[in-house]
């Protein structure tokens, strides 16, 4: 496996400039489900709201931050998914240093009504989950294991995402063919 990864890295280096940058994004399927490490998550009132409370349900764990415009632009689609799909729990975890106020301000600005405020209490979720870039959305099965992750922003409530979410809900294998469409870069203005 390591060798394949190295080959991949070498192949990336030989590719044209722009194409390589794009290779980092997209759906990455785990070879085998990986237990998600424990993260200290707080809700909007500062109370613990860890993923352990959601065991038994599939989860989309979205990592975002107020300084990441594509992340903020992706929130409304996740909010609509949370409202429409009751089999999956969407956890939008803010990695902001300014925590709850920054998350609440972004929710108010974007009209987020269904997602709960969740913040990375110890500012270590990015490291624990190896998120060297944002946004990243982890697809977590009912047993609390990461089965895949999507790097970049997606239109999470589009019909094209259905096969992926259906597989996650049913506990069926996920394949790269189920990759959701990347959300188009946009001219979003900073806060």
């Amino acid at each position: 496996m390591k060798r394949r990864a190295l080959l991949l890295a070498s192949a990336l280096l030989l590719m044209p400039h722009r194409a390589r940058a794009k290779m980092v994004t997209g759906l990455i399927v785990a070879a085998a489900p990986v237990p998600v490490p424990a993260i200290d998550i707080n809700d909007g009132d500062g109370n613990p709201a860890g993923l352990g409370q959601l065991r038994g349900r599939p989860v989309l764990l979205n990592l975002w931050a107020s300084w990441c415009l594509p992340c903020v632009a992706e929130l409304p689609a996740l909010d609509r998914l949370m409202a429409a799909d009751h089999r999956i729990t969407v956890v939008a975890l803010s990695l902001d240093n300014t925590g709850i106020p920054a998350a609440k301000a972004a929710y108010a600005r974007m009209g987020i009504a269904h997602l709960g405020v969740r913040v990375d209490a110890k500012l270590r979720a990015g490291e624990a989950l190896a998120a060297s870039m944002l946004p990243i959305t982890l697809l977590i099965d009912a047993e609390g294991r990461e089965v895949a992750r999507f790097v970049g922003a997606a239109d999470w409530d589009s019909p094209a995402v259905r096969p992926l979410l259906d597989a996650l809900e049913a506990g069926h294998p996920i394949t790269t063919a189920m990759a959701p469409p990347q959300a188009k870069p946009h001219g979003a203005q900073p806060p």
Partner: protein
Amino acid sequence: MVRKSVLLGALAAALVLTAPGGAPAHAETAAETTLTGRFKLIDQDGRAVTEASYAGHLRLMTFGYTFCPDICPTTLAVMAAAMQALGPDAARVIPIFVTVDPKRDTPQRLKAYVAAFDSRFVGLSGAPDAVDQAAHNFHARYHVNPPEAGDPDLYTVDHSAGIYIMDGDGRFLAKLPHQLDADDIAQRVRAALR
């Protein structure tokens, strides 16, 4: 496995950005010049600053830009976590973010941006040639890509990754790969403070 792939991807991206070619902004090589670490820039409050403005403080410095159109690197978040990990020692350290996109990253914009990471962050911008000179003096490469979708303000900037440790006189001590975690960075900083 998943984690490894992402790390490898990030590593590959970092290599891409630091590798020669791809129309870098500067043609010189590290061998031809020394990394002087000099700069004449404008801070997030509009003040003219140089490397001497932070005398007596160790600096953690990185180059980048704030308008990420599809994905955003978490380098500044890791630097902020390193500042937290340093505890009282952080009082002797200043984290500095230098934009390579001064057209969009004005001091006002940088002020709001760096504040989202840590109140101790300094965000530096300046005239394009001043930014160019600063990048040159750190051997940092960057390349502004053509605008996308016909919007002149929608473009990406490829740039070198990594975090510089500069001493209290602004001299280069070390360059850390950007995938280091906060505890590793804090450890390197503590060693430099001794």
